[in-house]
C-alpha cells in the first residue's frame, strides 16, 4: 500500500468483501496479537464521528501450553465486553458477531499480528546496492524482519552463504536479480546457492519453503524448472526492471499473500482467527507503517516515524510520497536493551545522564533489565538511565534507516556483466530539514510520566532541523488504525486525530554552530491571546513557551551568524506554528548537536537543559544531583 498522488489507496477487493458498507457501520473491533500481549481496541460512531471507546488486553496464547491464538483474542475482547456491556463474542465463544444487529456484535473486525517473532525473511539479489537492496526494501515495506541480505558481490564466498542459509529458518525468500532482458547468469548462480543450502521454513515441518522470484523476466523459465520441485515458487514482476526504476508493489503483495497462506496458516490458531476477521491478517509493522503514511497523507507533509519497542525499533519515512521502513531487529528497550549498549557504548549512553554513574553499575543494571524485561523504573535515577538508552536506540535506528532510505541515480550500464556495471548510489535522502513531522510510538514514549520527556528524547535522538511538529500516540493503536485505513480511511483518521495522536508541540531548531552564549537568533511570537513574545536566543540553550494543543501562533525567526532555519543561512522565516501538550521548544544547541567532552561540564549542561524545560520533577532532580 502506498500513497498515490490521486489519493489514499484503499484495498478495493477487501472493501467488496465487507459484510456491511462502511457508511452504515456503527461499531468496529480491531486487535493486535503481539508476542506477549493481545490488544483489543473498540471504536464506535457516536454523534456522527468515529471515536475510540475502550481497550481490552490479555496475554497472547500463541505458545505452549495454549497454542491457540484465539484464546488470547477472546480474553482481550471479553475485557472490552465487561467494560462496555456490549456483547461482541458469540455465545459459544467461537467467533465475533458481525454485523451489529442493534444489540450485539460489531460491523467490522480486523487484526494485525507480530506473535511468534513476526514475519521473518531472507532476501537475495545480484548486486548489494541494487537488486539486493531493492529486495530488502520490498521485504521491509511488507513488514518483515530481514534476517540476511545476500548478493553476488557481498564479499562472502558461496560456502559462507550456504552455511548462513542453513542456519536461518526464514518464513520465506525473495530472490531478485538482473534487469529485464539482461544476463541471467548471476541470478542463476544465486539460485544455485539457495538450492544447495536447502533452507528449511520456520513453520510447517515437511512443507516447501515459499520463494518469490522478482528478478529478470528472461530467467523465469530457468528459475521455474530449477525451484519448482523443492520450493513453493511465486513469480512476480521484476522489482528492478531497469536500473533506474524500482517497482516494489508486486513483491510486497506477494509477500503479504504468502504470509497469510504459509506463515499464518501454520501458526497455532491463526486459521481459526482468519475466519473471524473481515480483512486479511496483516503483520503489525506493515500496519504501523500504514498509520505513519496516513499521517503524511492527511497532513500533506514528509513524516519521520518511529516505533520504539522492547525488542525492535522500526523507523518509517515518508518523503515526497515514497514510503520506506527499516527495522533494527535488535535495538529495543527491554529484550534488546543490551544490544543498544553494545552498538552504542557506555560512554554514549552516559553522555545523556546529568550525574556520575559507575560503568560497572550501569552495565549490570541494563543486563538486569534485559533478563527481567517487564520491570519498570521506580526511581528517577532509573528513569533517566532508561531515557538515555532510548536516545541511543533511536539515534542508531535512524542511522540504520538512512542506509535503507537511499535514492538510486547515475546508473550507467557499460556491459551486461557484473564486473562492468558502473553504478553509484546517492547518499540517503533523509535530511532532517525536509521533515516537518516526527511521530513516535512505543511503550517508553507513551508511558513517560511527562510529555516533555518523549519530546526531548525524540529531539535529542533525531535532531530535527527547522520547524518540526512532534506527535506520539496516546494508547497503542497505530497498527489497528493502519489496517482499518485500508478499507475505511475516514474512520481510521477520525479516531487517529481525536483519540490516538497526541500533539506534543513544535520544535524550532536552526542548523549551525557557534560559541557558547553567542547570540544567534531572534524569535518573535504573536500568541493566540494577542500578546507578543520577543526573544534573543543564544547558542547552547533551550527555551519552552506554553502553547496548548489546538492553539496556533505566528512566529518570525531571524537567524544570524550563518544559522539556517530552512530558507537558507541568515534568512528569516515567518510561519504559523501549532501547540501541543509541551508547547513550543526553541532549541539553539546547534545542529549537529555536540555535547561538551569533559564529563562534569557536560553533566552541568544536561542538568541546565533538563531544568529549562521542566523535564523531570525539580525537587527530586535536585536531590538526585546532590546525592
Amino acid at each position: 500500500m502506498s500513497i498515490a498522488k490521486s489519493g489514499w489507496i484503499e484495498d478495493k477487493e477487501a472493501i467488496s468483501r465487507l459484510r456491511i458498507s462502511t457508511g452504515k457501520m456503527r461499531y468496529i473491533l480491531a486487535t493486535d496479537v503481539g508476542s506477549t500481549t493481545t490488544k483489543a481496541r473498540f471504536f464506535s460512531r457516536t454523534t456522527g464521528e468515529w471515536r475510540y471507546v475502550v481497550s481490552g488486553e490479555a496475554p497472547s496464547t500463541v505458545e505452549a501450553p495454549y497454542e491457540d491464538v484465539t484464546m488470547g483474542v477472546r480474553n482481550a475482547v471479553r475485557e472490552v465486553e465487561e467494560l462496555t456491556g456490549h456483547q461482541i463474542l458469540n455465545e459459544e465463544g467461537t467467533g465475533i458477531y458481525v454485523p451489529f444487529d442493534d444489540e450485539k456484535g460489531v460491523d467490522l473486525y480486523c487484526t494485525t499480528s507480530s506473535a511468534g517473532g513476526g514475519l521473518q525473511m531472507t532476501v537475495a539479489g545480484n548486486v548489494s546496492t541494487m537488486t539486493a537492496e531493492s529486495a530488502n526494501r520490498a521485504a521491509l515495506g511488507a513488514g518483515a524482519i530481514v534476517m540476511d541480505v545476500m548478493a553476488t558481490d557481498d564479499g562472502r564466498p558461496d560456502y559462507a552463504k550456504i552455511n548462513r542459509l542453513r542456519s536461518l529458518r526464514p518464513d520465506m525468500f525473495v530472490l531478485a536479480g538482473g534487469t529485464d532482458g539482461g544476463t541471467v547468469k548471476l541470478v542463476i548462480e544465486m539460485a544455485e546457492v539457495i538450492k544447495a543450502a536447502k533452507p528449511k521454513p520456520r513453520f510447517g515441518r515437511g512443507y516447501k519453503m515459499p520463494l518469490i522470484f522478482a528478478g529478470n523476466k528472461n530467467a523465469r523459465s530457468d528459475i521455474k524448472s530449477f525451484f519448482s520441485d523443492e520450493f513453493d515458487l511465486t513469480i512476480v514482476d521484476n522489482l528492478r526492471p531497469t536500473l533506474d526504476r524500482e517497482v516494489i508493489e508486486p513483491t510486497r503483495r506477494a509477500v503479504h499473500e504468502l504470509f497469510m497462506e504459509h506463515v499464518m496458516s501454520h501458526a497455532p490458531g491463526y486459521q481459526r482467527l482468519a475466519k473471524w476477521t473481515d480483512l486479511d491478517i496483516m503483520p503489525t509493522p506493515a500496519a504501523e507503517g500504514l498509520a505513519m503514511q496516513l499521517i503524511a497523507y492527511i497532513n500533506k507533509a514528509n513524516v519521520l516515524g518511529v516505533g520504539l519497542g522492547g525488542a525492535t525499533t522500526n523507523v518509517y519515512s515518508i518523503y515526497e510520497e515514497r514510503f520506506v521502513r527499516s527495522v533494527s531487529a535488535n535495538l529495543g528497550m527491554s529484550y534488546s536493551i543490551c544490544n543498544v549498549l553494545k552498538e552504542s557504548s557506555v560512554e554514549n549512553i552516559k553522555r545523556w545522564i546529568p550525574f556520575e554513574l559507575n560503568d560497572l553499575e550501569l552495565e549490570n543494571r541494563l543486563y538486569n533489565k534485559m533478563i527481567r524485561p517487564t520491570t519498570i523504573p521506580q526511581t528517577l535515577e532509573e528513569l533517566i538511565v532508561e531515557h538515555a538508552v532510548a536516545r541511543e536506540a533511536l539515534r542508531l535506528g535512524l542511522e540504520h534507516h538512512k542506509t535503507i532510505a537511499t535514492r538510486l541515480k547515475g546508473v550507467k550500464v557499460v556491459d551486461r556483466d557484473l564486473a562492468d556495471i558502473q553504478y553509484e548510489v546517492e547518499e540517503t535522502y533523509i535530511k532532517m530539514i525536509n521533515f516537518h513531522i516526527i511521530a513516535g510510538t512505543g511503550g517508553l514514549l507513551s508511558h513517560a510520566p511527562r510529555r516533555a520527556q518523549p519530546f526531548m528524547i525524540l529531539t535529542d535522538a533525531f535532531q530535527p532541523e527547522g520547524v518540526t511538529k512532534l506527535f506520539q500516540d496516546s494508547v497503542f493503536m497505530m497498527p489497528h488504525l493502519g489496517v482499518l485505513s485500508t478499507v475505511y480511511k475516514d474512520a481510521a483518521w477520525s479516531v487517529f486525530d481525536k483519540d490516538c495522536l497526541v500533539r506534543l508541540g513544535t520544535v524550532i531548531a536552526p542548523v549551525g554552530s557557534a560559541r557558547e552564549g553567542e547570540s544567534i537568533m531572534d524569535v518573535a511570537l504573536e500568541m493566540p491571546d494577542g500578546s507578543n513574545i520577543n526573544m534573543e536566543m543564544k547558542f547552547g540553550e533551550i527555551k519552552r513557551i506554553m502553547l496548548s494543543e489546538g492553539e496556533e501562533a505566528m512566529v518570525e525567526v531571524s537567524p544570524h551568524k550563518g544559522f539556517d532555519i530552512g530558507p537558507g543561512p541568515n534568512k528569516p522565516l515567518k510561519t504559523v506554528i501549532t501547540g501541543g501538550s509541551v508547547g513550543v521548544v526553541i532549541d539553539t544547541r546547534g545542529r549537529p548537536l555536540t555535547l561538551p567532552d569533559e564529563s562534569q561540564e557536560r553533566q552541568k549542561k544536561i542538568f541546565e537543559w533538563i531544568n529549562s524545560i521542566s523535564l523531570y520533577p525539580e525537587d527530586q532532580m535536585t536531590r538526585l544531583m546532590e546525592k
Partner: protein
Amino acid sequence: MSQQREKLSKEAHAYTPGLKIKELMTVRKVRILPIPGDVLVEKGDAVDFDTIVARTMVPGDPHIVEASNFLGLQPDELPKYMVKKTGDVIEKDEIMAQYIAFWGLLKRFVKSPINGMIENVSSLSGRITIREHPTPIEIKAYIPGEIVEIIPNEGAVIEVNATFLQGIFGIGGERHGKLTFVVDSPQEAITEQMITSEHKGKIIVGGSFITLEALKRAIENGITGIVIGGINAADLNDFLGYKIGVAITGEEEIGTSLIVTEGFGKMRMSQRTFEYLRAYDGKEVAINGATQIRAGVMRPEVIIPHEDRRKETSKTIELVGGMRHGTPIRIIREPYFGRFGTVVSLPIELQKAETESLVRVVEVELEDGGRVMVPRANVEIIEE
C-alpha cells in the same frame, strides 16, 4: 468500608510469574531430532543421562565449483565434458570434468575438493555442486528417567521426579555432574583460590558472586558447571570474548555451563535455592544454561533427579495462581533489587512513584521486618 477495602487489598490477585524453585516436581523433557530419523528407545524404558534416545543423518555441506570457467567453456557446454554425472559418489581430487584439445596437448581437469556426491551440474551457470557425505547426529536423554511417550521418527518424552530450580540467566548447554559446594553461605562469593583440580568434572555451587579469575580457573580445572547468585556483566563479556546483546544463549562452546540464579552484580543466592542445592551435595544432577527471554521463554535450570516416584504435593502448585497476602516474593529492580520478602497488601489504587508514573503497587515486608511499596511489575513470585 475501610475494613472491606483493607480485606480486598489483601486478597487481590496479581499474576507475576516467577522462577520455579520446586522441591519436588515431575519434570518432562521432550527430546527430538532436528530432522526425522530413528528413535532408539521404547515406551517404559529406563534411561540415564547419556542414553542415546534418537539418531539421524544430517545432509553434508554443499561445495560449488566454477567448472565451465576453469575449463574455458560456455556454461551450456559443461555437461558434454563431465566425467562423472549427477548422483555419482566422488572422492577428493577425483576428476569430475575434463577438457582435452589439440590431440592432448591442452588438458584441463576439474577435481572434486571433497569426498561426497555430485548433486547438480548446471548448464546455466556452468557450476558443479558436490555435497559432503551425511553426518550422524544423536540426541541424548539429558535426564535419567522413564520414557513415557514415543514421537515416531522424531524422539521421545522422558519423565522423572526431581527437585527443579530455574536460574535467571545462563550460558552453555546441557551437562551433568556431581554437585559440590565451595562456599558455606549464600552471601559468600567464589574466588579463584576456592577452585582446585579436585573439582574437575563437578558442578560447583557458590553464593553471591563469581570473579572473572575464578571463572577462568574453573575452565582450567575442567569444571562441568557453576551455579551462582550473581556475576558482573563486564566479567561475563570478558570471559566470553564478546558482548552479549540479547539473552539467547546455550550454544556457547566454553567447556562449562553457568547458571546465574539471581541476576547481574553481587547478588545473594536465594536461601531456598541454596538450601535445596545443599540438601543434594554430592548428587549427580543435570544442568542447562540455555536462556531465551523473548517468545518461548526458556530459563536455565538445575534438575536433581530422585529415584522415588512421589507425586508433586499440592503446596508446590498452589501459588501458581497469583500473588496474594503472604506470597513469598523477590524484588527485581532498584532501589530494593535482590531483597526478599512477603506480600502484605495489594492496594487497589494506582500510586505515584518517584518517577511520577502512576503504577499498581504491592506492599512488601522485607526479611528485616521493614515495609516498602514497589511496583507490581518489579517483583516476582518465588514458586515453591
